[in-house]
């Protein structure tokens, strides 16, 4: 397992983070002095109504967007722009159509200057890990949506990140594929020590995967809430405590 195992997941601390967008001449604040510590190796899932800033928060963590104020530090170092200790899994697979599955998975390492042979060796390991060993030479357009998303996951794992950022990675998949991919993400997370930060709008998905769920408020001056999910793994969706967490999160949203 030496090819993928990571010594430790990254630690994130967010201090007084704020971000607003101008919309039709008005300033619209989406994040207001957010403070949060993400523990090494934990799985934090961010939920919130649309417009609550969950994707914005993830993009700031990824270094794809700059905050207006406050800081994000990873392992004590201040984040400025993208960094090789982080990898992002997007909602769309974002595969390069002119590269095979193998080429796409090796891409992340190759652009960092890892020799092609070494990159492809590690890529093959992770292609097998997501169950696509037979499709290593296929073109992206030959894959189904679920398979393509697995390729995206394998690409992220191949660069051995300390922190894996997932932006609604299963949002576009059908219900059946979604459930099997959730199980796969849970397995990958428990085998690696990677810190996972995931945005979703699916509360069940959040409870299935998270150590803690961060609920971003919808209303202007609402407070950020953190919910500990204290359930043994692998989790059972039909268990009564699972269902109670679901009700609790729905209450946080004001839906019950």
């Amino acid at each position: 397992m030496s090819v993928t195992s990571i010594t430790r997941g990254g630690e994130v601390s967010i201090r007084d983070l704020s971000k607003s967008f101008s919309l039709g001449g008005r300033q619209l604040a989406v994040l207001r002095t957010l403070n949060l510590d993400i523990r090494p190796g934990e799985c934090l899932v961010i939920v919130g109504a649309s417009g609550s800033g969950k994707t914005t928060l993830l993009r700031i963590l990824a270094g794809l967007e700059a905050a207006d104020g406050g800081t994000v530090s990873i392992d004590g170092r201040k984040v400025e722009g993208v960094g090789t200790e982080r990898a992002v899994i997007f909602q769309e697979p974002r595969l390069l159509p002119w590269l095979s599955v193998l080429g796409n998975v090796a891409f992340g390492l190759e652009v960092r200057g890892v020799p092609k042979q070494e990159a492809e060796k590690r890529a093959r390991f992770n292609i097998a890990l997501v169950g696509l060993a037979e499709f290593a030479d296929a073109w992206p357009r030959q894959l189904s949506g679920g398979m393509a998303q697995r390729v995206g996951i394998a690409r992220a794992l191949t660069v051995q990140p300390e922190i894996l950022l997932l932006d609604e990675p299963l949002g576009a998949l059908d219900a059946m594929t979604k459930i099997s991919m959730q199980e796969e993400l849970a397995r990958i997370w428990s085998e690696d020590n990677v810190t996972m930060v995931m945005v979703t709008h699916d509360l069940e998905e959040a409870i299935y995967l998270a150590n803690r769920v961060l609920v971003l408020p919808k209303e202007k001056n609402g407070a950020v809430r953190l919910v500990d999910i204290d359930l043994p793994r692998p989790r059972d969706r039909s268990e009564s405590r699972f269902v109670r967490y679901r009700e609790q999160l729905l209450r946080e949203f004001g839906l019950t």
Partner: protein
Amino acid sequence: MTLQHMERPVGIGTHEGTERVGAGGLGMDFQRLTVRTTVRIISRYGVLLGFLALWQAAASSGWVNAAVLPPVDMIVAALWKGLAGGSLLGDIAISLQRAGLAFAAAVIVAIPLGLMIGQVRAVETALDPILQLFRQTSALALYPVFILLMGLGEASKVFVIFWATLFPLLLNTISGVKEVDPKLLEMARVYGARRLTVFRRVVLPGAVPSIFVGLRLGATTALLLLIASEMIGANKGIGFQVMNAQYNFQIPLMFAAIVILAALGLIANQVLVSLQRRLCRWNDPAS
């Protein structure tokens, strides 16, 4: 692998079928194959063959003036005489040289320039107005200017072809670069790719299909301008032959030259299509 394995037919489709059936069924199967091939040829080339047949019938039966529209067999004969006798070969060579030189120069200038304009905002802002102006000015209208500047020799001919070919190539290269999915660029950036790597590994391959559209349009334009330039002040070349044969009322020869032009266009397009297939296998639904 045993011999038995090797003897098993490994072909697909009809080939496998014919090997499986006994000697009695072979004839029937062959017949079906022939019928299918004929149907395919007719569905693809039927209209073209019908057009040629109609032409032949109309010209040889006197519905149209055979002196103006000679029958197909006379055109073929003139074409054969010109090619086998060698009288048209020199014209083909000089025309290919003019068009080829201009096309190559346009490729060398337009593709790097287009890649740069598509990538660097400042270059685009600075060059866009003048490019729009040049693009909208007909190359044929500028040909007299080029003749004044460069004389009536090869230089002005090659330059007018180059000029006209430049724009479809340039504009398609620019749009190819600009239409690369920004989500892919962002992905590459997240994985730590530097600007040059992003260009080499994402922008360039993403622009290739559009560049090929430009190359094919450019080839068509080059042949078009070749003929126009050879109709003015040339004494050799396919375009010259079209005009010259018409002056001398050698109408079958005129049509033979036109057929050669069409053939050159088809060949150029086919070469580019197969090159594109090789470079863009990822984009080819057949593979």
